[in-house]
């Protein structure tokens, strides 16, 4: 039996969960109106969470700076940058040519692109580790990856005209079969998790039973 503090959230989840499962199958105007209203409510209810998040962010980094923890300088830069962006947006707006937009275009976007480009190196190191033929599975993986990569470049067809077709078969047959198998499990898992929560069986999201 749920304790008193958990009864209300459980009741809200059970009632609203059931209502919105039914709503999904009812296309009529009142049903769609209810859905749109719920979306608006979820945005409104999320707003106080922004305040909590900003409070958490400032407290977390301020504490690191105060305690001079490892990397406290990064926290200082982070808080300074967050303040600068907020001030630029509030003072000059976020339109084209504003300071906020210039900071975004010339500082934030290149930094994001830099981290994104690191993916190539991470992939190489991960591929090196996994493609070392230490077991039958790893050897199979190595061979499949080799054929796939060859099939995607002109050199593959130059070696043997059938390589692109083999490469495509690997992608569309064994690879697709595995993906669809995973898809069935994921689909049923999603429905089962949703039903568990709606039925009140799953309560870990409230910190355990």
């Amino acid at each position, binding site marked *: 039996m749920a304790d008193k503090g958990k009864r209300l959230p459980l009741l809200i989840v059970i009632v609203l969960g059931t209502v919105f*499962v039914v709503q*999904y*199958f*009812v*296309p*009529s*105007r009142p*049903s*769609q109106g209810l859905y749109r209203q719920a979306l608006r409510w979820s945005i409104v209810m*999320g707003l106080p*969470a*922004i305040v*909590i*998040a*900003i409070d*958490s*962010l400032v*407290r*977390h980094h301020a*504490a690191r700076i105060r305690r001079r923890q*490892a*990397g406290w300088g*990064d926290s200082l830069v982070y808080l300074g940058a967050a303040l600068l962006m907020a001030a630029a947006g509030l003072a000059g707006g976020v339109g084209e040519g504003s300071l906020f937009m210039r900071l975004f275009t010339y500082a*934030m976007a290149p*930094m*994001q692109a830099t*981290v*994104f480009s*690191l*993916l190539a190196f*991470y*992939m190489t*190191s*991960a591929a090196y*580790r*996994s493609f070392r033929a230490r077991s039958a599975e790893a050897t199979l993986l190595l061979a499949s990856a080799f054929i796939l990569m060859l099939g995607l470049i002109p050199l593959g067809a130059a070696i043997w005209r059938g390589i692109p077709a083999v490469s495509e078969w690997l992608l569309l047959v064994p690879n697709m079969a595995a993906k669809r198998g*995973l*898809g*069935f*499990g*994921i689909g*049923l*898992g*999603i*429905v*089962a*998790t*949703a*039903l*568990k*929560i709606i*039925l009140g*069986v*799953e309560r*870990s*999201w*409230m*910190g*355990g*039973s």
Partner: protein
Amino acid sequence: MTIPRPIRLSMPATAALLALCANAFAVRPPAQLQAKDSPDDEGGKVRLEWRLSPDDSAAAVKGYLVERAASADGPYAEVRQVFRGSASYEDQKLQDKTDYYYRVRALGAAGDTSEPAQAGPVQARQQWFRKGKLNAVIGLVLFLLIIVYYLRRAQKENLFLRRLAGLDALEESVGRATEMGRPILCVLGSQGLDSVATIAGLNILGQVARQTAEYGTPLLVPTQDFIIQAVAREVVKTGYAAQGHPDRFSEDSVFYVVGNQMGYASAISGLMSRQRPAANLFVGHFYAEAMVMAEAGNATGAIQIAGTDAVTQLPFFIVACDYTLMGEELFAASAYLSRQPQLVGTIKAQDLGKVILVALLLALSVLTLALRTPFFYNLLGVQ
């Protein structure tokens, strides 16, 4: 050499010849225009479908002009021009239960229009059930019945659950972190609270929080979403309270980092290299940042356990993590960790659901191939 004399035509003959020439060069009209109420909607929409003008493929047609009127005799007003090759249009914002008439003309490249194809009257109406999702309703009800059956069965007997190495390692990683005096890092993915994978991640976090509360191991939960931060904090706090150690919970353990994808990946990578968590958990839905975080964690030598329903990110987690929960295993984690009979029962229901689904697919595939009709194939399609 004789020069032919010009032919002289009378006025009516000239007019008839001009009309003949105009008809010869005008684009031919679309055919078989059908106007129907849009199915499975909230009303106010009519769907038009027609067969393309025979001149459509020859590029003589620029597009199609859709016109609407309240009576068959008109006047017709232009509703929309659609591109060449378009054989359908959905007219919106109409009054329900009101008669409408439609005409569709082909627009010639020279600006001329064809004779119209006509349809009507038609009325827009709202529906109270999505007929295209009837199979989904049947499947959902059937699956619900299976879950209820296994929930009852789980109360009477112990149901077998196969071992999941990744989840067995979870408790071991908490113990390892405790011995090493290092924290456990839990990353809840990059989607919001509307993602079931995030909720599954929160379920796992709840179980992990109970274990870290028991052992007094520091837990770090940096989040990318402010709503998840608020919910995750409550989940961890309640987990600590449930184990009788509310004093061990630190408000600072669950914190918001940034909403930006790569900014978040950088922050997590930095946190891993500075604080060197003994175990990293990646549970939820991930995108390209998965590889950045998992490789950064791999470099620190931490035990890494990942669980995601993002099929495209699974290979990256498999190569960079020690254990990976693939797809449905993520959703089974909460039941596996808590060992609550009712939750275990739902896992058995999922297994039976899979068996039924695969059997159904096989049977319908055989019937489709044997009888050469798409009817059975379409039975599983959801519109």
